[in-house]
């Protein structure tokens, strides 16, 4: 077991800039940035609506360099990942990517993320939050090494219906044969770029992973090839709308990571996050949270994750959920947005069991501001079956050319 990768005196470095910083800054007219894992990244560069529609209608470029990335390798790498993650990792072949959650012993979710099987005994784990302590704790007794490579790999999320076309134009031969969750290395500018057909928008898209030195060239190549395809650099706000529309969860917003949650009942299990399909209780080997999750499966979870179709057009941000108008509080909304493509007022949230069955109606009390004055409104909400937006092209291979 070994770990390295933290720059010496990293705490003295202040806010870090990704290799794409200067290029984003050139396009920036809003000056709205925020901190993400020590890096500064934009909320919006130009206009949230334009940026959002680039995701859905053309091609969007989003800087995901700040993602926490760990390279795990060694003879026990598979066993290590299989014990860490709730999914059956023997099913993840080399050249494939898997989405999974990982839990503590109580079966509460620490974080979710993607796992790249880059070779037989090597994985790349990507998550929104830092995981070094979790990995260190998990490595006891395994013949593996893990390195924090967060700062060593620059990454772009390239999402939208025209992304495959643009990547082909850049020269990535055979990109259209990449199936969803496939992973492949391509030659680029004297180096290699790893491209995975993954994303956080519920749409066709790719994530591109490259060493920081060549990162600027990759950015330029995408914009050069995409100049007639409305390729747009986007900030976090547009992505946030897209991911809520796609019904995807965000750590720290929709659930509190178990490692930083102290209040009883505030952490959530995969079942309570609606991620039953990620938990393979019968995979035959021990994994973190297994015993607690078996108990929970038998006893039933405490909460249910719901995707709500809310009436009206006022977003139900931070709203309580009630069983009827003025009735009992049964839950809360964790994320909400007007979904422009689904043309729905959507919300993600949690209700106490047994409320929130698909098709049932609940109520939300929405607070909203009009010219600085607060108003409130009761709105009916219907529990949806699945995501609000799920285009066919997300999974088609080759993706439909527009």
């Amino acid at each position, binding site marked *: 077991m070994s770990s390295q990768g933290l720059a010496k005196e990293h705490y003295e470095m202040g806010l870090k800039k990704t290799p794409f910083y200067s290029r984003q800054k050139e396009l920036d007219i809003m000056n709205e940035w925020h901190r993400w894992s020590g890096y500064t990244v934009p909320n919006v560069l130009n206009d949230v609506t334009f940026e959002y529609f680039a995701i859905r209608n053309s091609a969007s470029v989003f800087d995901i360099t700040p993602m926490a990335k760990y390279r795990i390798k060694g003879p026990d790498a598979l066993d290590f990942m299989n014990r860490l993650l709730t999914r059956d990792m023997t099913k993840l072949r080399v050249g494939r990517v898997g989405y999974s959650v990982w839990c503590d012993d109580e079966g509460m979710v620490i974080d979710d993320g993607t796992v790249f099987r880059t070779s037989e005994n090597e994985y790349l784990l990507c998550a929104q939050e830092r995981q070094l302590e*979790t990995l260190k704790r998990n490595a*006891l007794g395994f013949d593996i090494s893990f390195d924090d490579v967060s700062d060593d790999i620059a990454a772009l999320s390239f999402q939208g219906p025209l992304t495959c076309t643009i990547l082909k134009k850049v020269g990535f031969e055979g990109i259209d044969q990449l199936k969803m969750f496939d992973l492949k290395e391509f030659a680029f500018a004297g180096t290699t770029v790893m491209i995975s057909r993954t994303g956080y928008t519920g749409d066709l898209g790719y994530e591109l992973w490259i060493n920081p030195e060549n990162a600027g060239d990759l950015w330029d190549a995408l914009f050069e090839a995409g100049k007639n395809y409305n390729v747009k650099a986007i900030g976090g706000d547009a992505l946030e709308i897209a991911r809520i529309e796609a019904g995807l969860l965000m750590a720290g917003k929709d659930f509190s990571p178990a490692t930083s949650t102290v209040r009883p009942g505030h952490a959530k299990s995969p079942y309570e996050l609606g991620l039953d399909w990620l938990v393979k209780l019968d995979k035959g*080997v*021990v*994994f*973190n949270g*297994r015993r607690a999750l078996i108990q929970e499966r038998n006893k039933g979870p405490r909460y249910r994750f719901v995707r709500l179709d809310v009436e009206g057009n006022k977003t139900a941000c931070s709203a309580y959920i009630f069983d009827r108008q003025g009735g009992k509080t049964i839950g809360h909304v964790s994320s909400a947005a007007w979904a422009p493509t689904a043309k729905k007022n959507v919300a993600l949230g949690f209700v106490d069991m047994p409320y929130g069955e698909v098709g049932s109606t609940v109520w939300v009390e929405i607070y909203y501001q009009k010219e600085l004055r607060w108003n409130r409104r009761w709105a009916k909400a219907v529990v949806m079956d699945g995501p609000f937006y799920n285009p066919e092209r997300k999974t088609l291979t080759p993706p439909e050319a527009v």
Partner: protein
Amino acid sequence: MTKAYDIIIAGGGHNGLVCAAYLAKAGKKVLVLEKNDIVGGAAITKEVFPGKSVSLCAQFLHQFNTRIADDLKLSEFGLEFIDTDCRTSLLSNDGRHLTVSFDGQVEGDVAEDEVKAFQILITRLQEFSETLGFLADIPPIDIFDPDMQDKLSALKLGWKLRFGLGAEKMSDFLRIVGMNIYDLINEELEDDRLKALLSVDSVLGTHAGPRSPGTILTYLYRQIGGGKGRTLVPKGGMGAVSKAIAASAQAKGADILTGMHVREVLIDNCRVVGLRTSCGTVYNAPIVVSNADPKTTVFDMVGSRHFEADFVHRINTIRMRGNSCKLHLSLNSIPEFSGLGSEALAGRVVIADSADYVENSFNPAKYNEWSSSPVIEFSIPTLNDPHLAENGHVLSATIQYAPYSLKGGWTDEAKEAFKNICIDTLSRFAPSLKDSIEQSLLLTPVDLENEIGMQGGNWHHGEFTLDQMLMMRPVPLASRYALPLDGLFLCGAGAHPGGGVMGSAGRNAANAILRGDKS
């Protein structure tokens, strides 16, 4: 095809044997596999020198559980005692030695008032020990999911403290229970020698000095059991206790195989299915009970990957630092200890003449260095139990402090140097000792780990501190003998109530298995 067993016990220490005996008594088919050629673990009698056999590691019985002795009819299986009230002599540098019995009778040059104060103090502590004593015979209270028994035990504890002791004594108990022994003895006593004796009794086998917090608790723990603080010496050495338990278990139908080192516990689909010995023999059983310490069990026998990560982390952080060496000296004659009769030498003798001596002796251990003025507890067991040696005698000593992770390691040179320090310390009181020594054997904590298997050479399979006791032993959420792997149990000193030759962990584990407990 091997015989089918219901339960296999990995390790034939005294707790493993007690566990086997209770399980066999309940009609279970039990197999015990012991790595060494004789059963008993740290409670064995071994031929340390040609023709001379003595207790190799544990030497005195402090907490002998009379209930277990009765249940298993150990006297019928050959257990006899040479001494049931072994007295302790304390060697003082100025020659003013003392001899003290369990109930506070003092022989020697001590003022009458001081003896009285000493008696009051040990009676007070003994009463607290008796109040807590029942906790050793029951599983730790499950605070997460208490059943009726747990609730009754909690009530019983509360009742005993409040109404058994009474408000004043309970208040006193609450005040001192987390304290260090040093502060208490300085409140109550004047005599350095009596303070030294209580200090030694509080820190033997620990990584603590008398000024370390929690040393009153370790003292109280040492006094629990049916003997009311008595020290017992079994005839034939400590091995006789283990032999009697083994004989009792075998009479009830348990099979015991020695020379069988359990290499790995076999797991299939997240549950125990048996184990494999180092010679490759596979034994199948749905339940495996480990008599090894928790770290050895989890990391070496089962493998950490078969447990969830937080549990593994907690096991990994158990403190189990051994600080005690064992020294055996083969003697051709009894050396003259000035001012001490041979009756005293057959009993328990302690070298430490003040509480500060003990604390100073501990100080280097904090920095992985040995003590150059060590605390020594010794006896010449061959005096009263002549069958142990064909001729001549053996002096057996426990030496503190000599840390497991000694700076520079326990090389042959280091061992020789420390052995000389020990012999020099003894010789201060017996100038002719060196002339009587024929052979010597020093067992460092590292040797004890290799010989007996306890990690860190820690007698207790985990240091005995408040955070590693009761429902926190070996770790929270796994204190009820069933470990979080279906079919795996712990029955050794790493489980509640802990170390010392007592057998309660083995008995409690057997009860948990028979109840069908799951973690």
